[in-house]
């Protein structure tokens, strides 16, 4: 695992509010941090190659683009099957996140989380049906939690 130093962390912090919408955005960050644009780009390239950065690009606001129905689908699947099933669910085009998380019995029996996004309730119902079919008899229980209110949404922050 690549060790991030203070310069990497400073670059990550400086970019989380978004790159500047001006011709030389990396130069803007470089000037803020007392670096050169070449160093900023080189460090970001290394972080991207090592997976610290998953991708660099535009982050669309699904809700504003008409995807008003956002469901957190949760499933109880056998632990010895979850790796295989999770990869399959994570590949579905309408799934934006897919995670294995611990159960917390008896209140929380679910171990597989998949976020789905649709423009209508019917879209989301169809998506849930697709996941249900994919999981088959490994689906021992499931639920869907729709968000009713976004109370806070910000990018990564790290306390220094």
């Amino acid at each position: 695992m690549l060790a991030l130093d203070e310069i990497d962390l400073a670059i990550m912090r400086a970019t989380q509010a978004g790159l500047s919408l001006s011709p030389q955005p990396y130069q803007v960050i470089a000037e803020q941090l007392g670096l050169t644009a070449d160093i900023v780009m080189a460090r970001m390239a290394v972080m991207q190659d090592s997976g610290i950065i998953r991708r660099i690009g535009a982050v669309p606001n699904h809700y504003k683009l008409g995807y008003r129905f956002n469901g957190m689908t949760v499933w109880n699947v056998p632990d010895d099957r979850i790796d295989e099933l999770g990869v399959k669910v994570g590949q579905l085009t309408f799934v934006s996140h897919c995670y294995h998380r611990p159960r917390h019995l008896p209140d929380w029996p679910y171990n597989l989380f998949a976020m789905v996004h649709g423009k209508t309730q019917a879209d989301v119902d169809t998506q849930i049906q697709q996941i249900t079919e994919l999981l088959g008899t490994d689906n021992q229980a499931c639920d869907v939690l729709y968000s009713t209110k976004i109370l806070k949404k910000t990018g990564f922050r790290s306390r220094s």
Partner: protein
Amino acid sequence: MLTALHKRLLNDFQRDFPLSSRPYQEIADMLGVSEADVLTALTELNDNHYISRIGPIIPPNQLGVSTLVAMSVPEQQIQTVADKISAYAEVNHNYQREHQFNLWFVAIATNAEHLQCLLNAIEQDTGYSALSLPLIDDFFIDLGFKLDLQHA
């Protein structure tokens, strides 16, 4: 109303944003428009909140330790409790959801000890117990989200 350029910028540049000194020029060259056209279109998308930002996306737990927390809070108190939770700098997503567990947030801390202290503090502060569901595995290969913008 989104133009063809807006739509291409939204769908084709969720990844592989150029790491070069003039990235918007590079995008402009790919799309056969000017750098100014790209910057104007992206500024419009940004100002109208069609995009939340352009920048690097970091997978969970790459920087610090995070967890997803669920709370069960009486309906009439949810805004008060949510406001208290959102006030913590370590909390970066906070959603109200329709469920017995109706408040869901992500907390990120520098290390496991800091995270535990934070969860203890939130429980004390709000008076409700925090169900912590930290990530065990991430199955998602994040290539961006294919948007259907036909009617956008």
